[in-house]
């Protein structure tokens, strides 16, 4: 079984799911964050062996972690509308419990996962702009200057300029128009950040220089087209 985990309105993930199924990743189950939150039965175990999870969804589908071969993981949040009846303290506690639980069972899933969850993000590590800029410089990419202080909100030069996004899938840049040195820097940034599937934003100067402006573990996959779907399918099956 292949999984695509995403919010119900994550059109990019739904697009990718169709593309992956067409490339032979079947059976493929799309499981939304909403379906996970409002499950019928949940069982997650830690033993001396591999962690296990079994979730019975409201539509009677059963997600058994032992049968999962690979996962496209685009989860960001677990909905908590069902907790609205609780007081604010209890609701906040329950929301933290649900996040902590999701982080754990996702981490225990076998097979390839793009992206692995981290405490900073269920669908891959969310980092503050300052960290992305710092890591991008370590990766050899040209970056804008970043400033932050108590006097004003954080800002980076070029923050509001038009950018182009390029997506990395496990060290592979899916766009042949990216200069090789920039593609290498993108791959290094993905490695340094531990993020297999990473979207990077660049500003192109009039002189043709690529200046890094941001990164995200949840890029709009549709901009990568068929070549991105090929890379995703290869990465999940490798």
């Amino acid at each position, binding site marked *: 079984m292949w999984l695509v985990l995403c919010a119900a309105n994550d059109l990019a993930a739904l697009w990718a799911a169709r593309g992956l199924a067409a490339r032979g990743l079947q059976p493929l189950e799309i499981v939304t964050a909403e379906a996970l939150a409002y499950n019928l039965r949940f069982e997650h175990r830690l033993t001396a062996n591999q962690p296990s999870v079994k979730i019975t969804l409201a539509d009677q589908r059963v997600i058994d972690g032992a049968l999962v071969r690979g996962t496209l993981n685009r989860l960001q949040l677990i909905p908590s509308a069902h907790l609205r009846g609780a007081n604010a303290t209890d609701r906040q506690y329950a929301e933290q419990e649900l996040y902590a639980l999701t982080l754990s069972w996702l981490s225990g899933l076998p097979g390839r996962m793009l992206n692995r969850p981290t405490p900073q993000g269920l669908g891959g590590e969310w980092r503050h702009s*300052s*960290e992305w800029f*710092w890591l991008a410089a370590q990766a050899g990419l040209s970056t804008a200057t970043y400033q932050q*202080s*108590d006097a004003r909100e954080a800002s980076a030069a070029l923050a509001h300029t038009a950018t182009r996004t390029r997506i990395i899938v496990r060290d592979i840049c899916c766009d042949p128009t990216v200069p090789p040195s920039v593609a290498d820097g993108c791959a290094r940034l993905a490695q340094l950040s531990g993020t297999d599937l990473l979207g990077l934003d660049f500003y192109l100067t009039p002189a043709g220089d690529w200046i890094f402006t941001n990164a995200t573990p949840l890029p709009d996959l549709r901009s990568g087209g068929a070549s991105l779907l090929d890379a995703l399918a290869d990465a999940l099956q490798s």
Partner: protein
Amino acid sequence: MILLCGIPTEPPLAMVREALAELNAPTLVFNQRHFANTHFAFTLAQGRVTGSLTIDKEQYDLENIDGAYLRLMDEQALPELSRLPTQSPERQRCRRLHDALLRWQEITPARVVNRLRPMGSNSSKPYQAQLIARHGFAIPETLITNDPALAQEFYVQHRRVIYKSISGVRSIVQELTPDDTDRLEQIRWCPTQFQAFVDGINVRVHVVGQEVFATKILSDVTDYRYARRQGGESELSAVELDDDLAEQCVRLAAALELPFAGIDLKITPTDEVFCFEVNPSPGFSYFENNTGQPIARAVARYLSGNG
């Protein structure tokens, strides 16, 4: 220079400050309650971090800070802000000050105890348990479920079972009793974590860089941290770990990217070592005050580059 951040009278911060003074290490204290007289700014250009911290009009170059020890409380709970509305300029500036400080400590080349990002592993106990298990420690059999029947079955199987929070929210570890089984229906609303009870002796291991301080805790209650509240007592004493276990603890802390960690172990009568949790911000003063172990001095040595 070593930067100390928090409330200076808070025991761990005060003890590390005193230990640094004994080492003649220059320190700079950011007292959160004096935020009104504190300013912070940094710039990141092509990977180089520069900037300044200004306290009472005295400006300090961030590049001269070699180490930082952070014991920050939630700044929005500071007494100085309590009467101010949420959107007041003072609250906003206080938030920006703390945010800038926290962003800087994630990327500065200084030795930081501890950086925020690695501390996140403690936000999910079963997630952290998976990381712990990869480093050779035994972990208790655990079930997290919203199915009362499964929880009941787990209880019958293990006979002694505890329950506790899944997230980093601090909770009192409680043992499940026959009376509690009547309340199991409530877990349908929120999955709950159950663990097989492990019999043995609690040992808290503080790892500071390569140094290890182990404390044995004898207690007559399930969660020794709350012994008094639960009508019991705890007795703490320093113990020596064997070299292999000490090294295993150092490796675990390093793998979690925590220069300073509090590792909770339980050693069974058959000498099996279970690890329950790694605390990324250990309030070590309780242990040092009860055993005399020089933990603050070790933290001071680490911060000043001699650990």
